[in-house]
């Protein structure tokens, strides 16, 4: 035996054993249990497919247009998100000067107006002369005029009516903005917007591009929050540890997601950072428990060990085989 086990096991009675056999038996049992679980329940929860832009543009065109025009006019929250996308360090989570996100900085610069709207619009303009003209008109207008059109259009969306899939606005001066936004809507409804967003990320990489930051972020904010609300998956509802539907998925994250249920953390703009630091302390306590006075006595105070080794203690009440008092080693 190894020098360690040789030293540790001297004088201890041994019994015959076959480790590989035991391992194979346990493996067989586990495999069977898992096969049964998978066969009976399949993938639990709803396993909804991803939310596509096409679906949103078709079923909730006004929500789609609101989000799109917010990127277009530069008013979305994403455009002042902070690192890693924009330079608004004041929006990065921090505790005093402790701001890991600021230290990493803007490594994936994102200009939502250009990347999400202007680039696809230019591509749409190549296919649709109306959009080309509108784009031209818009770009030649003064900044003040652009802002007025954007604002008028944005507030008109609140009174928009949808008839047969068409979005009808109350009369008003929106300049070329409705043509542009309808161009985006039509394009989105073809199901091509994700592809455009993905491949525009780096056109030189087109056939290999797998960076889905843009299409994943596009529907972020109000749209995805609404959908998540339908599935009880908001952070305040145990967030990540949930899967769609009533089932807990990653229940082992509960000690972490639990922290978000504390209003002071869940509602704080720095909640993630605070929750994580608390979790880190919890984890450290668990890892170092054997060295923490008090905690390392719990196994003696709650003597589960007496049950675990009950056969052994029945034979050797003190715990050592010779039954004699032991010396220090």
């Amino acid at each position, binding site marked *: 035996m190894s020098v360690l086990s040789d030293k540790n096991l001297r004088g201890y009675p041994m019994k015959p054993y076959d480790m590989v056999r035991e391992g194979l038996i346990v493996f067989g049992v586990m495999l069977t249990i898992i096969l049964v679980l998978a066969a009976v329940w399949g993938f639990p929860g709803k396993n909804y497919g991803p939310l596509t832009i096409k679906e949103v543009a078709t079923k909730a065109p006004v929500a789609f247009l609101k989000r799109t025009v917010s990127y277009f006019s530069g008013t979305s929250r994403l455009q002042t998100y902070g690192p890693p996308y924009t330079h608004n360090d004041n929006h990065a989570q921090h505790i005093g000067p402790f701001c890991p996100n600021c230290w990493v900085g803007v490594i994936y610069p994102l200009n939502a107006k250009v990347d999400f709207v202007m680039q696809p619009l230019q591509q749409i303009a190549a296919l649709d002369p109306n959009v080309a003209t509108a784009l031209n008109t818009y770009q030649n207008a003064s900044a003040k005029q652009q802002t007025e059109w954007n604002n008028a259009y944005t507030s008109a969306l609140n009174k928009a009516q949808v008839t047969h899939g068409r979005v009808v606005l109350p009369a008003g001066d929106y300049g070329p903005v409705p043509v542009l936004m309808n161009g985006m809507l039509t394009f989105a409804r073809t199901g091509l917007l994700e592809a455009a967003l993905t491949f525009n990320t780096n056109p030189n990489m087109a056939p290999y591009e797998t960076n889905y930051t843009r299409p*994943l972020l596009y529907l972020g904010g109000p749209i995805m929050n609404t959908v998540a609300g339908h599935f009880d998956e908001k952070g305040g509802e145990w967030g990540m540890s949930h899967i769609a539907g009533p089932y807990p998925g990653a229940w082992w994250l509960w000690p972490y997601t639990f922290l978000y249920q504390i209003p002071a953390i869940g509602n704080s703009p720095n909640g993630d950072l605070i929750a994580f630091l608390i979790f880190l302390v919890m984890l450290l306590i668990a890892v170092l428990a054997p060295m923490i006075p008090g905690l390392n006595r719990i196994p003696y105070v709650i003597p589960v060990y007496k049950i675990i080794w009950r056969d052994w203690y029945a034979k050797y009440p003190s715990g050592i085989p010779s039954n004699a008092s032991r010396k220090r080693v």
Partner: protein
Amino acid sequence: MNIDKVLQKGLKSFLPLKDDLPTEMPAYVNSFGYFFGTMTLASLAVVFMSGTVLAFFGPDWWHFSSVGQFFNAMHFWSVEVFYLAVIMHLTFKFFKAAWRGNRFRTWVNGWIIFIITIFSGISGTLLQANWDAQWNSQQGKAAFNALGLSWMNWMNYTTVLTLHVVFFAGLILFFVVTHLAFVRSESPVHPIVNGGKGEIDDGNARALGEGDEK
């Protein structure tokens, strides 16, 4: 110095074949308290095997073919069983005070595995290519960014796939091997002596009358 010789010597002293493939165990290893480590290992094996199949055929397959859906479900359920097992395992190791006798490194090694599996689980969630993955990448980004982990690009499918099936899986494998090597080299921790009272119970109590106490 002959490196092979040194390694031979190290293996002979710390992991001889007799410990790698033991044919006997101390008599006190006779309890459900030892079952969960094996259960963890067994379920982990199913995680790796089902995951390998998923890796071969890809997301369209595991979402849209019935065999694929079955393997997807198997991967999911093996992870659930794994966590049940590992949490029982560490609970029982805690109640056995199994860190005694220099086994603290085994204990810490165990926690390292546990922490890596959490990251592995998150990367797996993001790989699902379904609504949950999409939503978690939205929600998770706030946390990852806040923690200064944005340099790992969690929205690049290739990055996440590689992290999940190569990097985290490899780390888990590595630390499981060291865990088992520690466990086998040290022999199972002794039952607690005299309720842990009196002398310091270092978990390596030695039977008397066997000669060599110093």
